[in-house]
């Protein structure tokens, strides 16, 4: 545990000492819950259509695959025409693209970013490394199997997959969303303990609350 997260005694302006426990006082400790869709199916379908047509990707390049996302914004591929945009903050993004290999150190950040996104939210694994470690299959610090740690809706294979493959993947994701099958966030909430156990198994210096709101 980092020193700034340890319990400490502080003295208030009135001279009274009291304890501050950062993990309790500074972070919300509520677990995630399963969120149901709208009561009426047609409304939920409508929302799913909107969700599919408005994919906001978190601008977080976790590995080498990030370089393949950039061309999507250019005139050649122009992902915007498919309702895909990049957002700089996880709060406003719905889609986390794990672009390539994911070191354990980055995994911690990726988990944090994923948890800070609002549901429904989607994860796309990009390239072989996210699937089985790829060329890093024997590396001491990259994870081999992304879906152990967060619910992946879709993998796009290749090392690296080209932008066209990404576009195709996103189109497939849209189909999943429209069909109401992209419920990764709920899956994460349901199997929260399992995911956490997996995460904590590889992240040895766990220095954050279990769920990052």
């Amino acid at each position, binding site marked *: 545990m980092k020193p700034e997260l340890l319990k400490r005694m502080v003295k*208030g302006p009135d001279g009274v000492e009291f304890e*501050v426990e950062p993990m309790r006082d500074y972070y*919300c400790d509520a677990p995630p819950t399963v969120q149901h869709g709208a009561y009426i199916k047609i409304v939920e379908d409508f929302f799913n259509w909107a969700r599919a047509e408005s994919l906001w990707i978190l601008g977080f390049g976790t590995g080498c695959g990030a370089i393949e996302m950039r061309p999507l914004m250019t005139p050649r591929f122009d992902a915007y025409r498919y309702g895909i945009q990049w957002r700089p903050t996880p709060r406003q993004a719905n889609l986390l693209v794990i672009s390539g290999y994911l070191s354990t150190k980055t995994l911690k*950040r990726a988990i*944090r*970013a994923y948890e*800070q996104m609002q549901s429904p939210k989607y994860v796309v694994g990009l390239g072989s490394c996210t699937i089985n470690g790829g060329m890093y299959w024997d590396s001491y610090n990259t994870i081999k199997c992304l879906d152990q740690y967060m619910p992946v809706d879709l993998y796009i294979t290749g090392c690296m997959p080209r932008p066209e493959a990404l576009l195709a993947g996103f189109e497939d994701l849209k189909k999943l969303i429209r069909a109401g099958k992209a419920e990764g966030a709920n899956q994460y909430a349901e199997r929260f303990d399992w995911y956490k156990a997996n995460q904590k198994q590889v992240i040895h210096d766990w*220095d954050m609350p279990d769920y990052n709101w």
Partner: protein
Amino acid sequence: MVSPLYLIVLALAAAFLLGLLNPERRGRAYAVTLVALAGMTLISADWLWAFTMEGIDPVDVYTAGAEPPFAINLRMGLAEAALTLLVNLTGLLSALYLKDVLLAGGRRTMAVLLISVMALVGIILTRDLFNLFVFFELVVISSAGLVLLANDKDGGPASGLSLSAGFKYLIVSQFISAFLLLGIIFAYHATGTLNIDGMANASLGLATGGTIAFFLMFMAIVAELKPFPANGWALDIYESAHPAFSAIFSAATGAAALYAVDKLLLIGGAEWLPIATGIGIVTFIAANLFALPQTHDRRLLGYSSIAQTGLVLVVLGQRDLLGDSTPFIAFGLLISHAVAKAGLFWLSGLLKNRQLADWAALRQRPLLVFAFVTFTAMLTGLPPFPGFYAKWELVHQLAGAGQFTLLGLILLGALIEAGYLFRWFGYLMKREAPVETVPCTGHKVGPVLVAVAAGWALAYLWGDLAGGLFGRDNLLLALPLLFALSFLLLDWLPAWIKNSLAIAGMVAFFLLTWGEYDPLRLIFAIIFLIGGALTLLASYSVHGRRIGFYPAAMLMYAGMVMLIRATTSFDFFAAWELLTVGSYFLILRGKHSEPHALSYILFSLGGAFLILAGFALAAAGAPQFDLASLAQVAAPAAPWVFVLLAVGFMTKTAAIGLHIWLPGAHAEAETDVSPMVSGILLKAGLYGMMVLLLAMGKQQLYGVELTHVLLWIAALTALIGNLMAVFQEDAKRLLAYSSIGQMGYALFGLALMNHLGWLMALVFVINHYIYKSMLFLAVGGVAKRTGTREMYKMGGLIRLMPLSFIAVLIGIIAVSGVPPLSGFGGRWVFYNAIMSAEYRLPMVVLFMAGPIAFLYLFRLIYTIFLGQLKDELRRVKEAPFWIVLPQMIYVALLLVFAVVPGLALRHVDAYLNQFFPEGGLHWGGGTIISDYGYWNPVAIMIIVGVIFTTVFALLLIVNRKAQMVKQFNIVFSAERPFRPETTHYAWNFYAPYRKAMGFLTQPFVTRFWDTLADLLHTAGDLGRRLYDGNGQSYGFHFLAFVVIVFFVGGI
């Protein structure tokens, strides 16, 4: 009637009697001395009673039973009676004070004291020149003896310092005696008489050698007044002698010598008056200047004594101009000086150490602090003491006669004097007090208290006299002032009782008088009285007795009430001074407010002197005038009157250039004082401006429209005030600078000189009172809880102090002028007002200032209440109930004023029609219509409310399940925040803005005033080096003085 001769006889007899007594029976000798002095005091008092109450004529006593040329005659008149009473009383009290010394020194010391007092009485009574000389010699010898015999070591052997001082005194006295004797010989030769009246009749000046004879005599007697630069010896005496003796030396000797000069001037006639004036004013200025860098208390008092004597000499020198009022003025100044100086010297005897800062020890004794305050007020000529009346009269007469240079110099000197006296008072109140206690023996404190009582009695007497002379009511009988002073007597009560009394008193006074005000004044009356009472609610949060708070606060409120009730210039000015002094004491109460309170009182007094000069100029010789008749001031003087008064009032509204006192004063004041001095006190200056502008309207000076200049000043004030506020880290300082900006707006409205401009100023007056009081209270409450005023050390307090947050939120919305709160009313009126303004360019500056307010307002609320909560502040509680309660009332008031501004403004709008018939508002239903636009506050409030509620409801429905998170649950580029301190973006919040606009916030004004103060100090310090402590150089100074007067005076 006992013959005045007995005054001398009694002293002589007692002195002889002492010689006969057994030297060991010291107690008995002391009793004889006291009886003799008491007897002399009684005789003088008896005479004074007879002159004042029974109105008898002056009496001449012929010693040898023959008429003057052949014998010595003594005269007892009103002046003599008063002066001998002063001398004898000082002697008696000093003798009491000197009890230990006299008992230790034995009968010889007592005899010398008696002789000294007797000689002073003789100087006053005698009408014979040679006799005068003899008495002077006696004074010199006895004084030197006293200096040697009675030093501050309580009866021990004379210290080296006082020994050398006494010796130097003797050296210089020989010069003086030689001059006097030579002069008398020549004069006798020229006129054949030694009698003063005889010589006056014989027109000495016309006789051969008469001029030189008089010159020699005059120089000698004037030298006894310790004029600059021939006064080094006197300072050494003040510094080293026993304080009780210094009291005599300053109060009694000074008075006697002045009277001697007065008598001598009878001989010299009118042609010598300018010389006396010149010597006097140079001495007054120089001595005050030299006193400025002093740190030794008695030496400072010495300088001050010399200065005061110089001032009286100026008055004597202007007797041809002042005429019948000379005694009133001269005595007013002299008596103030004598009583205060004697009192201060006696006080200094109670303290062990001689540095000014050591006087902090007095703080343990509130009564002695009160004594100090009384004496300081007497010396600086504050109401209701005699010096105030005298100064008023003097300035009016001088201005009436066109003596502007002299007037300016007198006021300058007085300001410097106030500077060092108040600085001293600041030390007394604020410096670290030594551990030792102040010994409070009865015989030492007694005289001090008598002096205090005398001071207040004289205040009453002079009020009465002035009332008789000029048909005024006695200031001391004014109800508000009496109410304020009564808190001095009630100061032993617990604070909450006094607070209730104060609130009840203010509300009651308002209820009694509210029918008497016109709508304009009514607004101010409500703010001062009801608003003041409201602010006082916050004072319930302070426990204990809170000594000194209520007299000061009530004095300020009394002054403000008297200000709006004043109809004559005199009442107005007196009220102005009272509120200034009261607020000064209030401001000084803050923990670190010493320098700020000092700069406040200096700027305020400087401003007050300008107002005084302005009134004097406008009065054109009359003792006072109706404020309304300011309008009739004739052309050449009028613009100058305008300038003087306007600058004077602007020191209170803190217009740019005169604003540097405000931030510190407001920020360092106590929590409940800040709203008083910001929300309420500033309005006094605006009220002054209103009175001035209503009466005088537009004035032109050298073809420049003065209201146009005001517009620029006001606009720049608004800009700089706002801009400075942006860069403050200290929340209260931020608010203080914001006040400067807001006052700029109000002043701008007034200077527009049209109907809506004035209405806008009033809207600002009301709004600023409400929201600035509220904000200061809220921020003060937060500062109280968090123990800091630095905003960046706070943060995230919204959940812990929700009510304070609401107050600040409402406050900043109102200040920024965003609809639907009341600030918008001000902006709307402003835009309508400038539509018909004659000048457009100043608006540019004001427009620039407007949006800047958003910067500091957001910073205020964000850095305190939003953002990240710090470790140490996690358990902070909401501000105390009594601080929150008035805030909530203010919130309600703001909302009410926002929805129905007509409640307050309608009547004022109608009232303004008589001054500005054009451009009034039309109040139709909810809509307010001007010539250019319209505005419906009710509709705005409802529409905004409905939209807000609807949107809010929508959000609530959609977002009902929102998860409440804690402060570190933020997206942090996928990292986590380190600590709240590193996550709260607050310090130097507007760094990029500083890059762009910071050049405008260079402290030019502060630098200017600092340089000025430095210059004065340096000048004083350089001049002081004249006094090198060498007896020879003192002798040389005297000769130089004579030569200078000889050539400069053109004799």
